[in-house]
Protein backbone atom coordinates (compact mmCIF):
# COMPACT_ATOMS: atom_id res chain seq x y z
CA UNK A 1 0.00 0.00 0.00
CA UNK A 2 1.23 3.44 -0.89
CA UNK A 3 2.18 5.71 1.95
CA UNK A 4 -0.63 8.22 2.76
CA UNK A 5 0.12 11.69 1.47
CA UNK A 6 -0.15 14.77 3.69
CA UNK A 7 -3.28 16.84 3.25
CA UNK A 8 -1.83 20.13 4.53
CA UNK A 9 1.83 21.13 4.35
CA UNK A 10 3.36 24.37 5.61
CA UNK A 11 6.88 25.00 4.40
CA UNK A 12 8.83 27.87 6.01
CA UNK A 13 5.72 30.00 6.19
CA UNK A 14 6.20 33.61 7.27
CA UNK A 15 3.56 36.27 7.53
CA UNK A 16 4.48 39.88 8.19
CA UNK A 17 1.65 42.40 8.22
CA UNK A 18 2.04 45.69 6.37
CA UNK A 19 2.46 47.48 9.71
CA UNK A 20 5.49 45.30 10.48
CA UNK A 21 3.79 43.01 12.98
CA UNK A 22 4.93 39.41 12.64
CA UNK A 23 1.92 37.10 12.26
CA UNK A 24 3.64 33.80 11.55
CA UNK A 25 7.30 32.93 11.91
CA UNK A 26 8.88 30.12 9.92
CA UNK A 27 6.04 27.64 10.44
CA UNK A 28 6.65 24.04 9.42
CA UNK A 29 3.60 21.84 9.69
CA UNK A 30 2.49 18.60 8.08
CA UNK A 31 -1.00 17.26 8.66
CA UNK A 32 -2.07 13.81 7.55
CA UNK A 33 -5.59 12.83 6.41
CA UNK A 34 -8.01 12.08 9.24
CA UNK A 35 -6.16 13.95 11.95
CA UNK A 36 -7.98 16.14 14.49
CA UNK A 37 -5.44 18.87 15.11
CA UNK A 38 -6.05 21.47 17.78
CA UNK A 39 -4.10 24.71 17.64
CA UNK A 40 -3.69 26.33 21.05
CA UNK A 41 -2.13 29.56 22.20
CA UNK A 42 -2.89 32.98 23.63
CA UNK A 43 -5.11 35.50 21.89
CA UNK A 44 -3.08 37.24 19.24
CA UNK A 45 -0.51 34.46 19.07
CA UNK A 46 -1.35 33.90 15.40
CA UNK A 47 -3.87 31.05 15.58
CA UNK A 48 -6.45 32.76 13.37
CA UNK A 49 -3.74 33.88 10.96
CA UNK A 50 -2.58 30.28 10.67
CA UNK A 51 -6.13 29.14 9.89
CA UNK A 52 -6.73 31.80 7.29
CA UNK A 53 -3.38 31.07 5.69
CA UNK A 54 -4.53 27.50 4.92
CA UNK A 55 -7.34 28.59 2.56
CA UNK A 56 -5.58 31.84 1.72
CA UNK A 57 -8.16 34.20 3.11
CA UNK A 58 -4.91 35.83 4.23
CA UNK A 59 -1.91 35.84 1.96
CA UNK A 60 1.40 34.78 3.44
CA UNK A 61 4.61 36.75 2.94
CA UNK A 62 7.05 33.95 2.18
CA UNK A 63 7.06 30.17 2.12
CA UNK A 64 4.62 27.71 0.60
CA UNK A 65 1.41 26.00 1.66
CA UNK A 66 0.25 22.88 -0.14
CA UNK A 67 -3.20 21.31 0.01
CA UNK A 68 -3.22 17.70 -1.19
CA UNK A 69 0.20 18.35 -2.68
CA UNK A 70 -1.01 21.36 -4.69
CA UNK A 71 0.37 24.80 -3.83
CA UNK A 72 -2.39 27.21 -2.80
CA UNK A 73 0.21 29.94 -2.45
CA UNK A 74 0.92 29.85 -6.20
CA UNK A 75 -2.64 29.09 -7.31
CA UNK A 76 -4.33 31.72 -9.49
CA UNK A 77 -7.95 32.43 -10.41
CA UNK A 78 -10.10 29.34 -10.86
CA UNK A 79 -7.38 27.10 -9.52
CA UNK A 80 -7.43 28.91 -6.17
CA UNK A 81 -11.22 28.69 -5.98
CA UNK A 82 -11.07 24.97 -6.69
CA UNK A 83 -8.59 24.39 -3.87
CA UNK A 84 -10.73 26.50 -1.54
CA UNK A 85 -13.82 24.44 -2.15
CA UNK A 86 -11.97 21.41 -0.76
CA UNK A 87 -11.65 23.29 2.54
CA UNK A 88 -14.75 23.92 4.62
CA UNK A 89 -14.55 26.63 7.24
CA UNK A 90 -16.52 27.48 10.34
CA UNK A 91 -16.20 30.70 12.29
CA UNK A 92 -16.54 32.10 15.78
CA UNK A 93 -19.51 34.25 14.73
CA UNK A 94 -21.05 31.57 12.48
CA UNK A 95 -21.08 34.01 9.53
CA UNK A 96 -24.49 32.96 8.27
CA UNK A 97 -26.68 35.27 6.22
CA UNK A 98 -29.17 35.96 9.00
CA UNK A 99 -32.08 36.99 6.78
CA UNK A 100 -31.83 33.89 4.60
CA UNK A 101 -33.24 30.44 5.32
CA UNK A 102 -31.15 27.61 6.70
CA UNK A 103 -31.33 25.81 3.34
CA UNK A 104 -30.04 28.83 1.40
CA UNK A 105 -27.17 29.20 3.82
CA UNK A 106 -26.23 25.55 3.59
CA UNK A 107 -26.43 25.58 -0.22
CA UNK A 108 -23.89 28.39 -0.45
CA UNK A 109 -21.33 25.74 0.48
CA UNK A 110 -21.84 24.46 -3.04
CA UNK A 111 -21.17 27.62 -5.08
CA UNK A 112 -17.63 26.57 -5.92
CA UNK A 113 -18.99 23.71 -8.05
CA UNK A 114 -21.07 25.80 -10.47
CA UNK A 115 -20.38 28.22 -13.30
CA UNK A 116 -21.01 31.85 -12.29
CA UNK A 117 -24.00 32.47 -14.58
CA UNK A 118 -25.91 29.57 -13.03
CA UNK A 119 -25.19 30.93 -9.59
CA UNK A 120 -26.42 34.43 -10.41
CA UNK A 121 -29.86 32.87 -10.86
CA UNK A 122 -29.38 30.65 -7.80
CA UNK A 123 -29.90 27.46 -9.84
CA UNK A 124 -28.85 24.64 -7.55
CA UNK A 125 -29.47 21.08 -8.71
CA UNK A 126 -31.92 18.78 -6.95
CA UNK A 127 -28.95 16.58 -6.12
CA UNK A 128 -27.24 19.41 -4.25
CA UNK A 129 -30.42 20.28 -2.38
CA UNK A 130 -30.51 16.65 -1.29
CA UNK A 131 -26.85 16.92 -0.28
CA UNK A 132 -27.63 20.03 1.79
CA UNK A 133 -30.51 18.22 3.45
CA UNK A 134 -28.29 15.27 4.31
CA UNK A 135 -25.71 17.62 5.82
CA UNK A 136 -28.47 19.07 7.99
CA UNK A 137 -29.41 15.55 9.02
CA UNK A 138 -25.81 14.97 10.10
CA UNK A 139 -26.08 17.88 12.55
CA UNK A 140 -29.70 16.93 13.39
CA UNK A 141 -31.30 20.14 12.19
CA UNK A 142 -33.29 18.74 9.26
CA UNK A 143 -36.54 20.13 10.72
CA UNK A 144 -35.17 23.69 10.39
CA UNK A 145 -34.65 23.65 6.60
CA UNK A 146 -36.95 26.59 5.86
CA UNK A 147 -36.39 28.50 9.10
CA UNK A 148 -34.64 31.85 8.86
CA UNK A 149 -31.14 31.66 10.30
CA UNK A 150 -31.74 34.49 12.79
CA UNK A 151 -34.54 32.48 14.39
CA UNK A 152 -32.07 29.86 15.62
CA UNK A 153 -30.04 29.80 18.82
CA UNK A 154 -26.27 30.36 18.69
CA UNK A 155 -25.51 26.65 18.97
CA UNK A 156 -27.97 25.80 16.19
CA UNK A 157 -26.49 28.51 13.97
CA UNK A 158 -23.04 27.05 14.48
CA UNK A 159 -24.32 23.61 13.51
CA UNK A 160 -25.90 25.10 10.38
CA UNK A 161 -22.51 26.51 9.51
CA UNK A 162 -21.02 23.03 10.02
CA UNK A 163 -23.66 21.70 7.61
CA UNK A 164 -22.65 24.43 5.14
CA UNK A 165 -19.03 23.32 5.36
CA UNK A 166 -20.06 19.66 4.92
CA UNK A 167 -22.09 20.47 1.80
CA UNK A 168 -18.82 21.51 0.22
CA UNK A 169 -17.75 17.82 0.37
CA UNK A 170 -14.49 19.04 1.87
CA UNK A 171 -11.26 17.17 2.54
CA UNK A 172 -10.50 19.52 5.41
CA UNK A 173 -12.55 21.52 7.88
CA UNK A 174 -11.02 24.62 9.44
CA UNK A 175 -12.68 25.78 12.62
CA UNK A 176 -11.68 29.20 13.92
CA UNK A 177 -12.69 29.45 17.60
CA UNK A 178 -16.01 27.75 16.80
CA UNK A 179 -17.22 27.60 20.39
CA UNK A 180 -15.97 30.93 21.74
CA UNK A 181 -19.45 32.45 21.82
CA UNK A 182 -21.36 29.38 22.99
CA UNK A 183 -22.42 28.08 26.41
CA UNK A 184 -20.94 24.81 27.81
CA UNK A 185 -23.81 22.57 26.68
CA UNK A 186 -23.95 23.78 23.10
CA UNK A 187 -20.15 23.72 23.08
CA UNK A 188 -20.23 19.99 23.74
CA UNK A 189 -22.82 19.50 21.03
CA UNK A 190 -20.74 21.33 18.43
CA UNK A 191 -17.50 19.60 19.43
CA UNK A 192 -19.21 16.19 19.30
CA UNK A 193 -20.49 16.99 15.81
CA UNK A 194 -16.99 17.88 14.69
CA UNK A 195 -15.56 14.69 16.19
CA UNK A 196 -18.22 12.59 14.47
CA UNK A 197 -17.50 14.24 11.14
CA UNK A 198 -13.80 13.57 11.67
CA UNK A 199 -14.23 9.92 12.64
CA UNK A 200 -17.13 8.84 10.44
CA UNK A 201 -16.46 10.84 7.28
CA UNK A 202 -12.67 10.90 7.63
CA UNK A 203 -12.51 14.67 7.13
CA UNK A 204 -9.35 16.24 8.52
CA UNK A 205 -10.12 18.85 11.18
CA UNK A 206 -7.88 21.78 12.01
CA UNK A 207 -9.34 23.76 14.85
CA UNK A 208 -8.15 26.48 17.16
CA UNK A 209 -9.37 26.62 20.71
CA UNK A 210 -8.87 28.71 23.78
CA UNK A 211 -9.91 25.99 26.12
CA UNK A 212 -7.12 23.58 27.08
CA UNK A 213 -9.43 20.89 28.53
CA UNK A 214 -11.42 20.73 25.31
CA UNK A 215 -8.23 20.61 23.27
CA UNK A 216 -7.03 17.59 25.23
CA UNK A 217 -10.44 15.91 25.20
CA UNK A 218 -11.15 16.12 21.48
CA UNK A 219 -7.81 16.51 19.72
CA UNK A 220 -5.56 13.76 18.44
CA UNK A 221 -2.69 16.18 18.08
CA UNK A 222 -1.83 19.53 19.64
CA UNK A 223 0.01 22.39 17.97
CA UNK A 224 1.11 25.19 20.27
CA UNK A 225 1.61 28.68 18.87
CA UNK A 226 3.29 31.55 20.70
CA UNK A 227 4.05 34.92 19.12
CA UNK A 228 3.66 33.46 15.63
CA UNK A 229 6.04 30.57 16.29
CA UNK A 230 5.27 26.90 16.59
CA UNK A 231 6.47 25.97 20.10
CA UNK A 232 4.90 22.54 20.43
CA UNK A 233 3.70 19.86 18.06
CA UNK A 234 2.81 16.37 19.19
CA UNK A 235 0.14 13.85 20.10
CA UNK A 236 -2.27 14.70 22.89
CA UNK A 237 -0.56 12.16 25.17
CA UNK A 238 2.63 14.24 25.14
CA UNK A 239 0.84 17.48 26.00
CA UNK A 240 1.04 17.44 29.80
CA UNK A 241 0.31 20.33 32.12
CA UNK A 242 3.89 21.59 32.00
CA UNK A 243 3.88 21.66 28.20
CA UNK A 244 0.59 23.53 28.09
CA UNK A 245 1.83 26.06 30.62
CA UNK A 246 4.89 26.59 28.49
CA UNK A 247 2.80 27.26 25.38
CA UNK A 248 0.79 29.87 27.20
CA UNK A 249 3.45 31.55 29.34
CA UNK A 250 6.67 30.72 27.61
CA UNK A 251 8.17 29.47 30.88
CA UNK A 252 9.11 26.01 32.09
CA UNK A 253 7.01 25.02 35.06
CA UNK A 254 8.51 23.88 38.38
Amino acid at each position, binding site marked *: MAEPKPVIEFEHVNKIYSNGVVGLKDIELTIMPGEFVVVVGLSGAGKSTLMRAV*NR*LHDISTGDIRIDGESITKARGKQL*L*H*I*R*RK*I*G*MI*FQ*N*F*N*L*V*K*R*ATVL*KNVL*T*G*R*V*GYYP*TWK*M*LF*GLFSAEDKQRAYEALQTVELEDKVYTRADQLSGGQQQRV*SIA*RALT*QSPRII*LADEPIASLDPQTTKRVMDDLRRINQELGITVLINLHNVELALEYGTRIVGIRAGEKVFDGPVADADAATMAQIYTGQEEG
Partner: protein
Amino acid sequence: MSFPKRAFPWQKWVMTAVMVLGLIWSAFITDAHIGKFFENFGEFTKIFIDMCHPDWAYTPYVFGPMVETIKMAVIGTLIGSLLAFPYALLVARNIVTNKVVVGLFRFILNIVRTVPDLMLAALFVAVVGIGPVAGVITLAIFTFGMVGKLFYEAVETIDPGPLEAVRAAGAGKLEIIRFAVFPQIANYFVSYVLYAFEINVRASTVLGYLGAGGIGVYLQQALSMFRYDRVGLMVLVIFIVVLAIDYVSGKTREALL
Protein backbone atom coordinates in the same frame (compact mmCIF):
# COMPACT_ATOMS: atom_id res chain seq x y z
CA MET B 1 -12.93 71.55 48.03
CA SER B 2 -14.62 74.09 45.81
CA PHE B 3 -16.53 73.08 42.73
CA PRO B 4 -14.33 73.70 39.66
CA LYS B 5 -15.52 76.58 37.52
CA ARG B 6 -16.06 75.92 33.87
CA ALA B 7 -14.20 78.25 31.54
CA PHE B 8 -16.55 80.68 29.82
CA PRO B 9 -17.32 79.19 26.38
CA TRP B 10 -16.35 82.28 24.38
CA GLN B 11 -16.10 80.41 21.15
CA LYS B 12 -19.65 79.09 21.33
CA TRP B 13 -21.18 82.49 22.04
CA VAL B 14 -19.16 84.28 19.38
CA MET B 15 -20.22 81.71 16.79
CA THR B 16 -23.86 82.01 17.80
CA ALA B 17 -23.73 85.82 17.58
CA VAL B 18 -22.09 85.68 14.15
CA MET B 19 -24.76 83.34 12.87
CA VAL B 20 -27.68 85.37 14.19
CA LEU B 21 -26.24 88.62 12.80
CA GLY B 22 -25.59 86.91 9.49
CA LEU B 23 -29.20 85.76 9.31
CA ILE B 24 -30.55 89.28 9.98
CA TRP B 25 -28.11 90.84 7.54
CA SER B 26 -29.00 88.36 4.76
CA ALA B 27 -32.69 89.14 5.30
CA PHE B 28 -31.96 92.83 4.76
CA ILE B 29 -29.79 92.55 1.68
CA THR B 30 -32.22 90.14 -0.01
CA ASP B 31 -35.07 92.49 0.84
CA ALA B 32 -37.08 89.71 2.44
CA HIS B 33 -39.33 91.51 4.88
CA ILE B 34 -42.12 89.72 6.66
CA GLY B 35 -44.21 92.87 6.03
CA LYS B 36 -44.31 92.08 2.32
CA PHE B 37 -46.07 88.86 3.02
CA PHE B 38 -48.86 90.64 4.88
CA GLU B 39 -49.06 93.53 2.41
CA ASN B 40 -50.34 91.14 -0.23
CA PHE B 41 -52.32 88.98 2.12
CA GLY B 42 -55.57 90.25 0.64
CA GLU B 43 -54.57 88.93 -2.79
CA PHE B 44 -53.66 85.61 -1.27
CA THR B 45 -57.01 85.16 0.45
CA LYS B 46 -58.78 86.01 -2.80
CA ILE B 47 -56.87 83.32 -4.69
CA PHE B 48 -57.36 80.92 -1.85
CA ILE B 49 -61.11 81.45 -1.89
CA ASP B 50 -61.13 80.85 -5.65
CA MET B 51 -59.17 77.65 -5.17
CA CYS B 52 -61.68 76.50 -2.58
CA HIS B 53 -64.34 76.42 -5.29
CA PRO B 54 -62.89 73.75 -7.57
CA ASP B 55 -64.13 73.48 -11.12
CA TRP B 56 -65.54 69.94 -10.78
CA ALA B 57 -66.53 69.83 -14.45
CA TYR B 58 -62.81 69.84 -15.27
CA THR B 59 -62.25 66.57 -13.33
CA PRO B 60 -62.30 64.19 -16.35
CA TYR B 61 -59.53 66.21 -18.01
CA VAL B 62 -57.28 65.94 -14.93
CA PHE B 63 -57.16 62.14 -14.71
CA GLY B 64 -55.21 61.58 -17.92
CA PRO B 65 -52.35 63.92 -16.99
CA MET B 66 -52.32 62.63 -13.41
CA VAL B 67 -51.88 59.07 -14.65
CA GLU B 68 -49.14 60.30 -16.99
CA THR B 69 -47.38 61.88 -14.02
CA ILE B 70 -47.50 58.61 -12.11
CA LYS B 71 -46.26 56.71 -15.16
CA MET B 72 -43.33 59.12 -15.47
CA ALA B 73 -42.50 58.58 -11.82
CA VAL B 74 -42.70 54.78 -12.14
CA ILE B 75 -40.53 54.54 -15.24
CA GLY B 76 -38.04 57.15 -14.02
CA THR B 77 -37.70 55.47 -10.64
CA LEU B 78 -37.26 52.07 -12.25
CA ILE B 79 -34.56 53.11 -14.72
CA GLY B 80 -32.68 55.16 -12.13
CA SER B 81 -32.77 52.38 -9.54
CA LEU B 82 -31.66 49.68 -11.96
CA LEU B 83 -28.64 51.78 -12.87
CA ALA B 84 -27.97 52.66 -9.24
CA PHE B 85 -27.78 49.02 -8.13
CA PRO B 86 -24.54 47.98 -9.87
CA TYR B 87 -23.11 51.47 -9.45
CA ALA B 88 -23.60 51.39 -5.68
CA LEU B 89 -21.62 48.15 -5.48
CA LEU B 90 -18.86 49.81 -7.46
CA VAL B 91 -18.52 52.66 -4.93
CA ALA B 92 -18.93 50.60 -1.73
CA ARG B 93 -15.58 50.38 0.06
CA ASN B 94 -16.24 46.88 1.37
CA ILE B 95 -16.90 45.52 -2.12
CA VAL B 96 -14.34 47.35 -4.25
CA THR B 97 -11.09 47.75 -2.35
CA ASN B 98 -9.37 49.82 -5.02
CA LYS B 99 -9.38 53.34 -3.55
CA VAL B 100 -8.88 55.07 -6.90
CA VAL B 101 -11.90 53.38 -8.51
CA VAL B 102 -14.12 54.07 -5.49
CA GLY B 103 -12.94 57.68 -5.24
CA LEU B 104 -13.44 58.42 -8.91
CA PHE B 105 -16.90 56.91 -9.21
CA ARG B 106 -18.02 58.51 -5.96
CA PHE B 107 -16.93 61.87 -7.29
CA ILE B 108 -19.06 61.31 -10.40
CA LEU B 109 -22.04 60.28 -8.24
CA ASN B 110 -21.65 63.40 -6.13
CA ILE B 111 -21.64 65.59 -9.21
CA VAL B 112 -24.83 63.93 -10.45
CA ARG B 113 -26.39 64.56 -7.06
CA THR B 114 -25.55 68.24 -6.99
CA VAL B 115 -27.49 69.02 -10.17
CA PRO B 116 -31.00 70.14 -9.13
CA ASP B 117 -33.86 68.19 -10.71
CA LEU B 118 -35.43 71.38 -12.09
CA MET B 119 -32.24 72.19 -13.95
CA LEU B 120 -32.11 68.66 -15.40
CA ALA B 121 -35.72 69.05 -16.52
CA ALA B 122 -35.01 72.38 -18.21
CA LEU B 123 -32.03 70.81 -19.93
CA PHE B 124 -33.86 67.73 -21.21
CA VAL B 125 -36.90 69.69 -22.30
CA ALA B 126 -34.47 71.63 -24.49
CA VAL B 127 -32.78 68.45 -25.72
CA VAL B 128 -35.67 66.01 -26.34
CA GLY B 129 -38.52 68.51 -26.51
CA ILE B 130 -41.60 69.15 -24.41
CA GLY B 131 -43.25 65.97 -23.14
CA PRO B 132 -42.99 63.12 -20.68
CA VAL B 133 -39.72 61.72 -22.11
CA ALA B 134 -37.85 64.71 -20.72
CA GLY B 135 -39.53 64.09 -17.37
CA VAL B 136 -38.59 60.42 -17.34
CA ILE B 137 -34.94 61.13 -18.10
CA THR B 138 -34.84 63.79 -15.40
CA LEU B 139 -36.38 61.51 -12.82
CA ALA B 140 -34.12 58.62 -13.79
CA ILE B 141 -30.99 60.72 -13.24
CA PHE B 142 -32.37 62.25 -10.06
CA THR B 143 -33.27 58.79 -8.71
CA PHE B 144 -29.88 57.40 -9.70
CA GLY B 145 -28.11 60.03 -7.62
CA MET B 146 -30.35 59.69 -4.60
CA VAL B 147 -30.79 55.91 -4.49
CA GLY B 148 -27.16 55.35 -5.44
CA LYS B 149 -25.99 57.17 -2.33
CA LEU B 150 -28.54 55.61 0.03
CA PHE B 151 -27.73 52.25 -1.41
CA TYR B 152 -23.96 52.28 -1.14
CA GLU B 153 -24.28 53.46 2.43
CA ALA B 154 -26.50 50.44 3.12
CA VAL B 155 -23.98 48.14 1.43
CA GLU B 156 -21.20 49.51 3.63
CA THR B 157 -23.07 48.64 6.82
CA ILE B 158 -23.53 44.93 6.08
CA ASP B 159 -22.02 42.15 8.18
CA PRO B 160 -18.69 41.13 6.56
CA GLY B 161 -18.88 37.64 8.12
CA PRO B 162 -21.00 35.97 5.43
CA LEU B 163 -18.75 37.46 2.73
CA GLU B 164 -15.75 35.75 4.28
CA ALA B 165 -17.67 32.47 4.65
CA VAL B 166 -18.83 32.40 1.03
CA ARG B 167 -15.33 33.34 -0.14
CA ALA B 168 -13.88 30.47 1.91
CA ALA B 169 -16.25 28.10 0.09
CA GLY B 170 -14.53 28.94 -3.21
CA ALA B 171 -16.86 31.63 -4.53
CA GLY B 172 -15.76 34.36 -6.95
CA LYS B 173 -16.57 38.05 -6.61
CA LEU B 174 -19.97 37.90 -8.35
CA GLU B 175 -21.02 34.86 -6.36
CA ILE B 176 -20.05 36.60 -3.12
CA ILE B 177 -22.25 39.54 -4.11
CA ARG B 178 -25.10 37.21 -5.05
CA PHE B 179 -25.05 35.02 -1.94
CA ALA B 180 -23.60 37.16 0.84
CA VAL B 181 -24.21 40.82 -0.10
CA PHE B 182 -27.53 40.74 -1.95
CA PRO B 183 -29.58 38.84 0.67
CA GLN B 184 -28.41 41.30 3.32
CA ILE B 185 -29.47 44.42 1.41
CA ALA B 186 -32.38 43.40 -0.83
CA ASN B 187 -34.97 44.72 1.62
CA TYR B 188 -33.19 48.03 2.02
CA PHE B 189 -33.00 48.40 -1.70
CA VAL B 190 -36.73 47.85 -2.23
CA SER B 191 -37.44 50.25 0.61
CA TYR B 192 -35.23 52.98 -0.88
CA VAL B 193 -36.77 52.50 -4.32
CA LEU B 194 -40.23 53.03 -2.84
CA TYR B 195 -38.98 56.09 -1.01
CA ALA B 196 -37.56 57.46 -4.25
CA PHE B 197 -40.90 56.76 -5.93
CA GLU B 198 -42.73 58.79 -3.28
CA ILE B 199 -40.42 61.73 -3.86
CA ASN B 200 -40.61 61.33 -7.64
CA VAL B 201 -44.41 61.50 -7.75
CA ARG B 202 -44.21 64.84 -5.97
CA ALA B 203 -41.27 66.05 -8.02
CA SER B 204 -42.83 65.05 -11.34
CA THR B 205 -45.88 67.26 -10.72
CA VAL B 206 -43.54 70.21 -10.54
CA LEU B 207 -41.39 69.08 -13.46
CA GLY B 208 -44.40 69.33 -15.75
CA TYR B 209 -44.33 73.02 -15.01
CA LEU B 210 -41.18 73.21 -17.10
CA GLY B 211 -42.82 71.27 -19.92
CA ALA B 212 -41.64 67.83 -18.88
CA GLY B 213 -45.08 66.23 -19.19
CA GLY B 214 -47.75 65.21 -16.75
CA ILE B 215 -50.18 67.23 -14.67
CA GLY B 216 -47.68 70.06 -14.15
CA VAL B 217 -48.22 71.19 -17.72
CA TYR B 218 -51.93 71.65 -17.04
CA LEU B 219 -51.23 73.28 -13.71
CA GLN B 220 -49.02 75.82 -15.41
CA GLN B 221 -51.66 76.55 -18.06
CA ALA B 222 -54.41 77.02 -15.49
CA LEU B 223 -52.21 79.32 -13.44
CA SER B 224 -51.29 81.49 -16.41
CA MET B 225 -54.96 81.80 -17.30
CA PHE B 226 -55.80 82.73 -13.68
CA ARG B 227 -58.18 79.76 -13.50
CA TYR B 228 -57.74 79.26 -9.76
CA ASP B 229 -60.81 77.04 -9.62
CA ARG B 230 -59.03 74.56 -11.86
CA VAL B 231 -55.77 74.97 -9.95
CA GLY B 232 -57.72 74.17 -6.80
CA LEU B 233 -59.06 70.98 -8.33
CA MET B 234 -55.63 69.84 -9.51
CA VAL B 235 -54.00 70.61 -6.17
CA LEU B 236 -56.72 68.54 -4.52
CA VAL B 237 -56.19 65.59 -6.89
CA ILE B 238 -52.40 65.75 -6.47
CA PHE B 239 -52.84 65.94 -2.72
CA ILE B 240 -55.03 62.82 -2.60
CA VAL B 241 -52.81 60.81 -4.95
CA VAL B 242 -49.56 61.74 -3.17
CA LEU B 243 -51.13 60.98 0.20
CA ALA B 244 -52.36 57.58 -0.99
CA ILE B 245 -49.01 56.64 -2.53
CA ASP B 246 -47.09 57.78 0.55
CA TYR B 247 -49.37 55.76 2.77
CA VAL B 248 -49.14 52.52 0.81
CA SER B 249 -45.41 52.84 0.23
CA GLY B 250 -44.81 53.80 3.86
CA LYS B 251 -46.67 50.75 5.13
CA THR B 252 -44.81 48.50 2.70
CA ARG B 253 -41.47 49.88 3.83
CA GLU B 254 -42.36 49.35 7.47
CA ALA B 255 -43.15 45.72 6.71
CA LEU B 256 -39.86 45.30 4.85
CA LEU B 257 -37.44 46.59 7.48
